[in-house]
């Protein structure tokens, strides 16, 4: 099936993503930041769907929005201080920080302009209906070892988080 109004949805989603990305780094209240980040993540999930990556989109929603962001909100509630909102929000090196980031952005733009041809290749159209199966087969064949490492990493993260948050076990 051909996606409907691809151009429109691309600009809508990417515009929303960037707009809420700006909100993430400018809001005083971390809860508002988290809300904006959730919107960014959802927009990105939409972009993944448009890129024929439905499985990644699903994982994005279930893990990022349903898992990680809930964790963030949970922690924000625990550590939310009224006074931290009245304090200065940006640190002293904000000018060099922004300059460095802008320089980085300029670098990206240069690369994209100079090497535009590099990124233009014929699209490989996977049958969308098979996406999950193909990703699954890849995970369990080519990427078996990284997959196991990732599970180990998660285990370490669980233990680490418990150790950190609970000082005396």
């Amino acid at each position: 099936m051909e996606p409907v109004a691809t151009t429109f949805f691309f600009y809508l989603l990417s515009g929303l993503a960037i707009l809420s990305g700006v909100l993430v780094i400018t809001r005083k209240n971390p809860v508002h930041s988290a809300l904006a980040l959730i919107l960014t993540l959802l927009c990105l999930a939409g972009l993944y769907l448009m890129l024929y990556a439905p499985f990644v989109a699903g994982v994005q929603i279930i893990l990022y929005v349903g898992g990680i962001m809930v964790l963030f909100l949970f922690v924000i509630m625990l550590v939310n201080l009224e006074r931290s909102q009245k304090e200065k929000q940006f640190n002293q090196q904000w000018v060099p920080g922004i300059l460095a980031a802008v320089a980085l952005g300029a670098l990206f733009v240069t690369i994209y302009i100079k090497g535009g041809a590099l990124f233009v290749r014929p699209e490989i159209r996977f049958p969308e209906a098979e996406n999950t199966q193909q990703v699954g087969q890849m995970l369990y064949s080519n990427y078996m070892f990284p997959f196991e490492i990732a599970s180990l990493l998660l285990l370490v993260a669980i233990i680490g988080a418990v150790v950190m948050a609970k000082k005396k076990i």
Partner: protein
Amino acid sequence: MTDSTSSVSHLDLDESKKTFLDANELILNMGPQHPATHGVLRVILRLDGEKVLGLECVIGYLHRGVEKIAEHRTYTMFNPYVDRMDYVAAVSNGLGYCEAVEKLLNIEAPPRANYIRVILTELNRVASHQLWLGTHALDIGAMTPLFYTFRDREEILKIFEKYCGARLTTHAFRIGGCQYETYEGFEKDVKKFISFVAPKIDEYEELLTTNRIWVERTKNVGTISAKDCIAYGVTGPVLRASGVKWDIRKAQPYAAYSKFDFEVPTGQNGDTYDRYLVRMAEMRQSLRIIQQAVDGIPEGPIMAKVSKVMKPPVGEIYHSIEAPKGELGYFIVSDGSTQPYRVRVRPPSFVNLQALDLMCRGQLVADVIAVIGTLDIVLGEVDR
């Protein structure tokens, strides 16, 4: 549970006892407008996450000065006021007061009156326990028992209504006996009620006693030892559930209780589940007493000779009975006039409520609700 229950602030806690949420202690104000505080009890909880570090009861929202009112009423006139203390067991309140004044006047109610008193009081005990069960179960989240118990309590209230015209604040007894003779068919009604309600009690037990969630919610919750019970002066089913076999009906029999054969159910663990079992058993024992009383009710007068103007001799008296919630005592000082010099009530709910802090420390918020329910307090009696 001993150490973490200390009432010190989380900042003074040992490092090892701090928990995940120790970052800030939460003061939660529960009540006086809260669905599970049985009226207008206000409990200030100090929480560590969901764990209760300590709590404080604020009472007095229903204070009407019943004891002070007594000083300006004659002995007879004060009688209806006591019904308004524990309004779900008004008959017991009346019985205690009437017997205390009778003791002061040195008269005794005739045997038939005593039998009627026992029947009505025990009926009221069943009604009170039913109301307790319904609300307690509702607090723990089981909705349905509430409606079952209220349906069956209705039958008791109907008997009260037929007997004396009132359902809740009955004012059934008078000093010296009973005002009203039993109505036509009273015994039949009571017997019918017994055969009606006995299977219903099984029905409540079917819903709850072996229900896994109920058992998990009540076992080892709000445990109080026999020693603590005695130290705090806790009486009634709460005391008996801790294993102390103390029932004033047996220990210092009043009315006609010495004539009946019944058992005093006790528990061992002193937790919420045992208190539940004890009260369920008590309902069955009450039915046994009522059965015996109805079967053996003697003929005769129902009122002793009492002068219209009561002037008890100078002196003081303490008389207590076993109300559904515990020992209900009346301390009356007479100065020889028609009005008492001082009346002091020992309300079981008030005394039992003291143990709330002890029973809730170290438990969770949900357990506070369960414990308030299991203490079976009536705020009308706590505040008087």
